[in-house]
């Protein structure tokens, strides 16, 4: 198996498209967006059912790619997270079909 990086970006739903644009521009070959139900950060709780506008919803974006592509994305994502609510983390994973990532 081959080593790749896994980016996990937790970000407000309204910023999904911006984040995905960054990932695609960085050369990542794919990503998947998952819904979140509720959460907590910096003293605030949020909950999908609290917010009629759904503007406060968060999503989790998972993207597996080469160290280089993830690196490229991180700089831009850091800028994005200076404006939008969210956090990210990166870990090492193994994949089977290296050409896909």
């Amino acid at each position, binding site marked *: 198996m081959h080593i790749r990086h896994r980016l996990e970006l937790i970000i407000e739903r309204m910023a999904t498209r911006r984040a995905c644009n960054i990932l695609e521009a960085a050369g990542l070959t794919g990503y998947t967006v998952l819904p979140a139900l509720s959460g907590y950060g910096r003293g605030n709780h949020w909950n999908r059912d609290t*917010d009629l506008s759904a503007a406060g919803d968060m999503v989790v974006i998972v993207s597996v790619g080469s160290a280089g592509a993830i690196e490229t994305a991180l700089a831009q994502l850091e800028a994005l997270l200076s404006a939008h609510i969210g956090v990210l983390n990166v870990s090492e994973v193994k994949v089977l079909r290296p050409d896909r990532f």
Partner: protein
Amino acid sequence: MDIAFATLLSPMVLFFLLGLCAALLKSQMSIPEAFAKGLAIYLMMSIGLKGGVEMSKNALGQDVVLVMLSGIALSFLLPIIAFALLRATSRLERTDAAAVAAHYGSISIVTFVAAGQAVEAAGLVTSGYLVAVAAMMEVPAIISALMIVYRRGQKDSAIAGAERGELAQEVLLNASVVVLIGSLVIGWLTGAHGMERIAPFFVEPFQGVLCLFLLDMGLSAGRGLRNGWRLLGPATIGFGLYMPLISACLAAGLALLNRMPAGDAALLITLAASSSYIAVPAAMRLALPKAKPAIYLTLSLGITFPFNLIIGLPLYIWLAELVTR
């Protein structure tokens, strides 16, 4: 007084209060988001269609155009007043103040719908084109608020990943604009005849659906209040209570100028007094992401919406009758 009492004791308002109390008492009950969103689309289709059918009955005259322009002007103007008041009285930062201001220039469709019910219960008649006015008042306030923020050259360098035109897309083609205007046009095209066959779904059950939806709004407002009230100082809370009254007075003036009939005047006043909690928050997350959503959502949905629904509506009807007598 009678109107106030009748409003307060309508099932609609009582279901809102039920939701509000349940949330304040920390009940975990909730109405699924997908279901509530479906109901919201139903409500907008319904009022759009009804407005369109009404409009199809009369030719649109100059008076209609003037009221539309008045609505647009209000939507542009109110954020400027709101921003000035917030900066003068509260400790909100520029961006937060501008974001809040955008909400108060824009409108709340549910408040508008509730006003329609109350006005009708008060024995007044309304014109269909007010739905169009409502749709037209959604967006200008957003532009106005963004102009306030960007005036001093404070325009952020573009946010990472942002696309050209994404804000316009969001603001001009959000669900409420699309569904309201679309249904209005469809109602207007198909007229009373087309409406006949769909009335058992779009007209008769309307008030009942509204009750269910207001139960959900009560839950949301209550939860918003519980989570967010600590972020609101007394000056901000005060703003959420007096700003609707200022807006109402301005709108009443315009209603007088336009010689609107009492029912229509009440609706225009309510539109001005109401504040957005669906379309504008979404737009603010894109355009002013640094503004804190807990502030504008809590204020608009937790303070102003209940105020308008319970105390405001009878007041606005009374005001409308005053200026149109």
